[in-house]
């Protein structure tokens, strides 16, 4: 038995039935990390000893006939934006280098309760700001399908580690596409749940009204399995939804006959790579063949999505990141007060923040600070909130006509590292198809629907109404039962 080749669902079954031990599984994945991550840089921290000890404990409990959690023995990689009490949590920022939170994020605690084996913390764009993972203070992540290309971001490490078989499942967070876009560019499946479906407690905040944690795996069925553990109400998160968590895994079988999928004409306009367009159209055809019907729908305000997102998110970020001020978390400028600032305290703040944050984070803090300033608030932030409501209404209207909306995840396949780093606006446009989901607070899933001639994965996105996760997962799972794109693996020199 080769654990690296098994799905999360099959691994959990195999461990439960004693066909393979949790230690064997952990060793297989840890070995793979040791072998290939040098060229990918998906992990910021790997806790080999703790993972093996945890796996051994699970094996011992299984042998003793004690009850085991739903994810017993499943290795899971966690984005470094989620607090872990036994591992550093840095958000890929110098600002939090060496920071160890005194508590586990709600999702991390749930994974531990379910007996998952946490193998390590994955690389990301600093504070989840970016679409290429090049904004990490600890080096870019390389796309396993082509090491010269970006894996997407901000959950690039989580996407790359699943794509390269370093973990069967990973946790990401999605503020404007940060799960779906890297999943698309790395050829894996990623679910951005409805806002509030998964508790944000312990997720280091980027933009609180948009952030949502979700699973990143090789298949929709694996996402469904993880969702059963991580979703649910948390009284510690006031924005968390109280609705019961469905048994997602048991709701995948029903055929797609009669499913109405919307297609937005504007998604196929200028800027969309022809090979991506072709892959997406093929996926629509496959859904049609599976019994779904395809309908044109309109999202009239979608064109304002990027502008709206790049006001709302930086505004919230400018406030969320104020706590990293040099007085806390260790990163303080060592420059002695020069007297060039209004006070030594202000100088310490300015220098520490200048040294501790990377350029993209600073750019967004400045954007947000500016947009919230007296005299600009109405023109920028307040207006963005109004447009956000219109975008949300567009989706509500569209979901009167269709059950789900399909389309591309991002306009191009994985782009070369360095290609967009000098052009922030071009980088922001990689989020053009994904930000609407976050602004509307609804759900979205991304999964592979083909490959370019150059061998790069093409992603397909489905968006659904609030709490439509069972349908999103089912549609993606049905598609994956008819296709094999999600089973393809990059060939990595080892």
């Amino acid at each position, binding site marked *: 038995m080769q654990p690296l080749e098994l799905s999360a669902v099959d691994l959990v079954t195999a461990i439960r039935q004693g066909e393979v031990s949790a230690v064997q599984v952990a060793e297989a994945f840890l070995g793979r990390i040791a072998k290939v991550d040098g060229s990918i840089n998906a992990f910021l921290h790997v806790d080999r000893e703790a993972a093996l000890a945890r796996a051994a404990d699970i094996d011992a409990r299984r042998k003793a006939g004690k009850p085991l959690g739903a994810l017993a023995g499943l290795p899971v990689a966690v984005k470094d934006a*989620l*607090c872990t009490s036994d591992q550093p*949590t840095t*958000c890929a920022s110098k600002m*939090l280098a060496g*920071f160890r*939170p*005194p*508590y586990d*994020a709600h999702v991390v605690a749930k994974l531990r309760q379910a007996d998952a084996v946490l193998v390590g913390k994955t690389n990301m764009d600093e504070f989840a700001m970016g679409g290429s993972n090049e904004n990490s203070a600890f080096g870019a992540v390389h796309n396993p399908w082509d090491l010269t290309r970006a894996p997407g971001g901000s959950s690039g490490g989580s996407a790359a580690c699943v794509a390269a078989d370093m973990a069967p499942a990973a946790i990401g967070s999605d503020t404007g596409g940060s799960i779906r876009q890297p999943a698309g560019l790395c050829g894996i499946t990623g679910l951005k749940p409805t806002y509030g479906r998964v508790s*944000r*407690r*312990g*997720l*280091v*905040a980027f*933009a*609180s*009204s948009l952030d949502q944690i979700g699973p990143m795996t090789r298949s929709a069925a694996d996402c469904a399995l993880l969702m059963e553990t991580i979703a649910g109400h948390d*009284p*510690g*998160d*006031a*924005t968390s939804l109280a609705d019961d968590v469905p048994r997602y895994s048991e709701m995948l079988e029903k055929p797609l006959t009669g499913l109405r999928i919307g297609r937005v004409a504007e998604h196929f306009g200028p800027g969309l790579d022809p090979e991506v367009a072709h892959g997406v159209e093929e996926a629509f055809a496959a859904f049609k063949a599976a019994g779904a019907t395809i309908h044109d729908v309109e999202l009239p305000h979608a064109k304002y999505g990027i502008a709206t997102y790049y006001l709302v998110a930086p*505004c*919230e970020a*400018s*406030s969320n*990141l*104020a*706590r990293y*001020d040099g*007085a*806390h*978390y260790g990163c303080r400028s060592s420059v002695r007060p020069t007297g060039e600032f*209004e006070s030594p*305290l*202000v100088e310490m*703040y300015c220098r520490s923040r200048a040294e501790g944050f990377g350029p993209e984070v600073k750019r967004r803090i400045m954007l947000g*600070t500016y947009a*919230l*300033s*007296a005299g600009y*608030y109405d023109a920028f*932030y307040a207006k963005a909130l109004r447009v956000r409501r219109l975008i949300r209404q567009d989706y509500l209207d569209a979901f009167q006509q269709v059950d789900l909306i399909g389309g591309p995840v991002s306009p191009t396949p994985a782009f070369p590292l360095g290609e967009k780093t000098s052009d922030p606006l071009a980088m922001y446009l990689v989020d053009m198809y994904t930000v609407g989901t976050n602004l509307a607070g609804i759900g979205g899933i991304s999964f592979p629907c083909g490959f370019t001639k150059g061998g790069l994965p093409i992603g397909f996105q489905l968006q659904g109404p609030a709490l439509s996760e069972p349908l999103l997962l089912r549609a993606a799972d049905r598609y994956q039962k008819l296709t094999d794109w999600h089973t393809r693996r990059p060939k990595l020199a080892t």
Partner: protein
Amino acid sequence: MSKQPATAASDPYITVIGLEVHVQLQTQTKLFCGCSTRFGSPPNTQVCPTCLGLPGSLPVMNRLAFDLAVRAALALNCKIAPFTKWDRKNYFYPDLPKGYQISQYDLPFSSDGHLEVIDPKGAFSRKVDIIRVHLEEDAGKSMHDEAAGTADTRIDLNRAGTPLCEIVSQPDLRSPQEARGWLNELKLLLVYLGVSDCNMQEGSLRVDANVNLHIPLPGEGGAEGRIAKTPIVEIKNMNSFRSVERALIYEAARQWEEWQATKVEMGKMPKQTRGWDDPAGITRPQRQKEESSDYRYFPEPDLVPVTVSDAEIATARAAMGDPPTVLRAALAEKWKISAYDADVLVNQGRDLVAWYEDLATRVGEGKVASNWMQQDVLRTLNERGGTIAEFPVTPEQVADIIGRVQKGDFDTSRGREIFAEVLTSGKAVADVVASMGIAAVSDDDLVALCQELLAANPKIVADVKGGKEQAAAGLIGQAKKKNPNANPGKVRQMCLDLIKALP
């Protein structure tokens, strides 16, 4: 009261004052986490990821704190908003761990109230409108260790996240004395409601004052005059109501002098902030920079809006109990005491009022009970310190003493001695009366005593006979010496009767 004069009618200006009061709510736990709000614990022992503002931590509103704030706002006659939300007030300071304070900006939970203060001595009476009352979290405390010479600042975050009500008044107050009186009334109200202990020393009540002068200018050439207004100054750092009064007196005088020298009016310079230096008795300018902050308020995305139903408001109102104004009127009416007496009693707090009513019920006469409360109970309570609940003498005992005075067993001053003895010895009233040799003097004994006195004082007898009744006073002192239990009033009356009966 300060000996310095408040704004007097003769002043060539009117002092215009508005107050901003921050009150810590008396909750067991903080506004957005479960940490204790107890005062005086070792630094940073009542903290958790949320009030430390650690990455990833989230606030969850404490509904009990919110309900307590609603109670305060209702007592201040405010309208309660059916829908209210939280906002972030962004600024950098080391004792503000998140870099923002969760507060309320454009939709405070309550607004448009008022609180009236009436000086019992009639010096002033003022109804002050309240613009808004909102809820927010407190910051931590910075302790500047300048004495150590290192200028290190240490941060204690025990206080961070404690619920604070901010009460903003209209500039309706017209003298420093009124401001102090109004603050006393506000404090009394909040203590009565159990909303806050309003302890200024522990920082549970903080006051900032906005003050300027309105100066009537005569018109020229028959034109109508106008009112010149001096620039508004905000005064901070006042740590008692007395310092509020002193600072306002100082500031009004300072502004008057400045006006005379510069004639600068409001709007010609930015609002100034000055800090009160209590030992020096002066206000000093604070740095302009601190005032021009742009707090970049925006809605707090980590919290959901709060709705308040009419039923919830009705419940809060029902749980409120009578506020001091209502209680004063009720007490004066029920026990036939003066407004002044009712004011003195009510100002001592709800427990003391209950004590008084117990006493008055037993005595059956509100005025007598009130006199004993003020002259004996309150005086000794103030000397001893502590609360009425800890007072060693019970209403039952005081009623017993008063009853004996009323029966004529002994006079009031003798009653006071007994009260003092009961207080110090802790003995029962009857035992004290017995041990002090106090016994009722029978009518026969009284007649015998008086006849003895008349026989020994022919001069007084003659004077009284001659129409000088006041001469009888000389007999009372002697009667006391012969029998300390003799009631002076009775002795006097008996002697007069006996003299009249003489041929």
